[in-house]
């Protein structure tokens, strides 16, 4: 077998694995979220389909696929079709740079456990999370509905303002790791995870990631009691499903990013690296669900004030201080 064929096969196998794990993970995250929220409200959550409701995601998928695919009159058809795909694809693509385990040896060759170890992984991630805004904005715009439009506008401004804080909170990480590659960032946390080394950056990243995934304290783009369903009001069937799945894949991605940037990625004692990685991602996902069960939605002006007047100055200050400390330690 020629060399390039093995490389290609390995990449395809990794891709398939990541795809499979991500999609089933997202599907079961929905179930986990519904169950956990139910328990927090002293209910059981879905428990009818299969044992413990474990087949619920399947039932949901069947339901979404068999629903009518409705296009509103005078909607911009092409954009309307493309927007949900954008939301899901950008979320999926971001996982390409996430390293989930140290390289392993297979067929006498070293296989990095990451789909593609870019040396500018951080920038790639930031770029894709900016692209994710288009799904929201275009979906809201193309629906030809006031609620969708308002949701789209809100989503646009919210994501743009929180992206700044998110990018700025990653600067100290890059400074400390001295690399843009996610693998190197994980390896730099060999002794202490960055969450302990720079808790402020961790907190800012956590908050802006929650805003980025449009989840509950920051779910203004969909705000169901103000805007019906926000940017996906007019979507039905699997197009809505794509937005929905995209949101949960996004949650997994952002969990993986928090894990890589701040929680030390796959590093950890006793357990195999991949288990550590999954555990950390699931812990972050649980935290997001917990937040959803706990906090009410912010008002729009509170959201903007918090982003521009608190998070961004704080993260700028954090960049300066971290840089100064690093310079001072170098001597």
């Amino acid at each position, binding site marked *: 077998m020629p060399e390039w064929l093995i490389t290609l096969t390995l990449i395809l196998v990794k891709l398939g694995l990541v795809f499979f794990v991500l999609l089933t993970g997202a599907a079961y995250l929905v179930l986990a979220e519904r169950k956990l929220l139910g328990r927090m409200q*002293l209910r*059981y959550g879905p428990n009818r389909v299969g044992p413990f409701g474990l087949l619920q995601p399947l039932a949901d998928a069947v339901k979404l696929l068999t629903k009518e695919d409705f296009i509103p009159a005078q909607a911009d058809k092409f954009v309307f079709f493309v927007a949900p795909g954008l939301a899901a694809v950008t979320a999926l693509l971001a996982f390409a740079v996430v390293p989930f385990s140290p390289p392993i040896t297979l067929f006498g060759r070293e296989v990095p456990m990451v789909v593609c170890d870019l040396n500018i992984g951080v920038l790639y991630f930031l770029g894709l999370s900016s692209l994710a805004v288009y799904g929201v904005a275009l979906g809201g715009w193309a629906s030809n509905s006031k609620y969708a439009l308002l949701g789209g506008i809100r989503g646009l401004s919210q994501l743009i303002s929180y992206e700044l804080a998110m990018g700025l909170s990653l600067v100290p990480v890059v400074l400390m790791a001295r690399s843009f590659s996610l693998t190197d960032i994980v390896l730099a946390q060999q002794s202490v995870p960055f969450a302990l080394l720079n808790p402020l950056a961790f907190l800012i990243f956590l908050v802006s990631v929650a805003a980025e995934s449009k989840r509950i304290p920051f779910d203004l783009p969909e705000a169901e009691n103000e805007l019906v369903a926000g940017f996906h009001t007019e979507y039905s069937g699997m197009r809505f499903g794509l937005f929905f799945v995209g949101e949960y894949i996004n949650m997994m991605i952002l969990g993986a990013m928090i894990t890589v940037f701040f929680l030390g990625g796959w590093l950890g004692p006793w357990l195999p690296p991949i288990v550590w990685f999954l555990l950390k991602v699931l812990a972050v996902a649980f935290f997001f669900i917990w937040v959803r069960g706990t906090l009410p939605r912010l008002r729009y002006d509170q959201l903007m004030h918090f982003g521009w007047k608190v998070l961004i100055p704080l993260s700028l200050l954090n960049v300066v201080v971290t840089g100064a400390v690093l310079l001072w330690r170098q001597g």
Partner: protein
Amino acid sequence: MNLWRDIKGTVQPFWVTLRNMLRRPVTVRYPEQKRTPPPRYRARIVLTRDPDGGERCVACYLCSAACPVDCISMQAAEAPDGRRHAAWFRINFARCIYCGLCAEACPTLAIQMTPDFAFCKDEPLRLVYEKEDLLINDGGKDREYNFYRHAGIGVVNPRGGNDDEYGPVDVKSNLP
């Protein structure tokens, strides 16, 4: 300190939700766990009988007039002894909203609500109950009540022949 209050207000709820997550849910899982509804629960409607075993219903149409969704219909008839009853009596449970106004309107306690709520069908027409389906062999909530001992029977000839009734008084006999 306002900031301190805000931070506390943000962190405290997390403890509350976590504590509640570990508590037992209060849900009653219906098909497996059934609760008995209270005796005055308003569900399936029945037609009751008086202690003698006769139908209480006198087909006065008050229930069908009181019904806000018009789900009760009947046809009045009279027995040879002058006793009124319904020739047929029909309740469309697919329409019924279980408001209980019929039971309240009924002067003879014939129509009553029972706590039996689980009688859904896969076809709406099977929810149309006829008189035979509605009649039960019991007095329901007030077993002793017997309307016909007092009223509701046709006038017999000669006058005063019914139970509970005196014959007409000869006015000339009770002059002062």
